[in-house]
């Protein structure tokens, strides 16, 4: 957690951090304890990768961010607003989760309707709603496919539309679950281009370590329900011992040390 002090300044500027997780602990109803006191602070505008082996508690953490799971102990605040039942709707607008399988996220008959689903739920109508849909689709470069069915898009296009469905809600923080999964190299790079162009706070859950390096200056490693490392991505990925201890591995031929 040393790196947290190094980043210094943004926290003191008076703006609430985009995400503040404090001592979060959670056990599933079957008794399985998934999180043992996770603390994590993401400042506005930061891009952070959340790394860790399967079963480390990454997905559990993500589902706490917008109140789908409720903390057993500890708290989560988004842009200064605590995650609690009474303002769940505003929290869900502020936290834009892009799920791993776009087929789970895109459920409306056409791309444009799907992008409109979120903002319409959050009360936007008419020209406002249309403008949001257009802007979000243009941002991900999918404007010309607005009237197609998500079913007839390629994997990379679906992923970008899934991103647009969340961007249209104008989130405080963008949470991406395995954004590069099942993408071919070109689609993977195109998505990276879109993400790098966004001026958004981002938390990216991934196993794709080079992707984390490319997109996120800072990384947080969690394992067994606790944060085990937090620092500049390049430094973490160069620490072979740390990676080995937490079942993380760079692809063949890839070295940073």
């Amino acid at each position: 957690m040393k790196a947290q002090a190094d980043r210094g300044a943004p926290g003191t500027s008076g703006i609430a951090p985009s995400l503040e997780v404090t001592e979060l602990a959670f056990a599933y109803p079957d008794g399985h304890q998934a999180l043992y006191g996770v603390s994590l602070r993401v400042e506005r505008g930061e891009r952070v990768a959340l790394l860790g082996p399967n079963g480390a508690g990454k997905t559990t953490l993500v589902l706490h961010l917008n109140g789908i799971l409720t903390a057993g102990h500890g708290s989560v605040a988004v842009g200064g607003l605590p995650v609690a039942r009474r303002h769940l709707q505003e929290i869900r607008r502020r936290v834009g989760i892009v799920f791993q399988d776009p087929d789970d996220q895109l459920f409306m008959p056409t791309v444009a309707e799907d992008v409109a689903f979120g903002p319409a739920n959050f009360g936007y109508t008419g020209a406002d709603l249309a403008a949001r849909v257009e802007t979000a689709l243009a941002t991900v470069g999918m404007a010309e496919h607005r009237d197609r069915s998500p079913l007839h898009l390629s994997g990379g296009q679906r992923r970008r539309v899934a991103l647009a469905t969340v961007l249209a809600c104008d989130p405080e923080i963008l949470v991406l679950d395995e954004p590069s999964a099942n993408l071919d190299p070109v689609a993977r790079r195109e998505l990276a281009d879109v993400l790098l162009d966004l001026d958004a706070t981002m938390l990216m859950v991934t196993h794709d370590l080079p992707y984390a390096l490319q997109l996120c200056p800072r990384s947080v490693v969690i394992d067994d329900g606790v944060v085990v490392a937090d620092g500049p991505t390049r430094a973490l990925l160069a620490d072979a011992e740390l990676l080995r201890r937490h079942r993380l591995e760079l692809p063949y031929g890839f070295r940073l040390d």
Partner: protein
Amino acid sequence: MGAGHAHPLYRPGDSPVHRLPPEVKIVAAVVGVCCVVATPRAAFGVFAGYLLLLAGIWVVAGIPFGWILRRSLIETPFVVLAVLLPFAGDDPRIEWIGLSLSEPGLYGAWNILAKGTLGVLTSLTLAGTTPLRDLLLGLQRLHAPHLVITIATLMLRYIDVIAGEAHRMRLARISRGHDPRFLWQAGATARGVGTLFVRSYERGERVHLAMLSRGWTGRMPQLTEQRTTRRQWAVGLAPAALAAALALAGSILT
């Protein structure tokens, strides 16, 4: 809208019938079918009137008669029963080329055949001029239960995803030497169906989570701003009014 979801019963077009709001067409079709059902079976002229009315709508909508006829074959299995009635019905009986036919049976058969056919033709006309997506929108505007609308919308989207999954599972089975032609291999197919059910159920849970994350509160938002005008209602319901007049004439005259 609905460009990605061509369904076999829809015939794309830009006629006045296509452009009518979906809820108007749904109401007109339901009224039309009710009129047909309420018509006394012996009012032959009235049934001919209904058919002429539908034919008029097809002309306006630019639907070829052959297109409608081919799709109306779907009715065939349901009218088999009607064919049996003249043989099995009560007295009085009439002789026709050596066959003894029951008069009430003949009437009964005609009743099923005429009303069934007109009902199918009306539904085909509605489906042929309205994309599925718009049908759902129409139902929503007519205040159909939210749950029904949500289920139907999701079905419209996921039926192809699930079919794709079933297809991939089948390929994987065949690749491992499964030959579904043999009866003793039906077990594997059945287990495949079970697996598909569980997978679809799990997907349903994930879709629900993703919907909640985007602020879903239990009802689908209406995404178009177009509102139906009185004039559209008047134009759309004119054929239904004609049908009602026919039905009335039918019950007075017979």
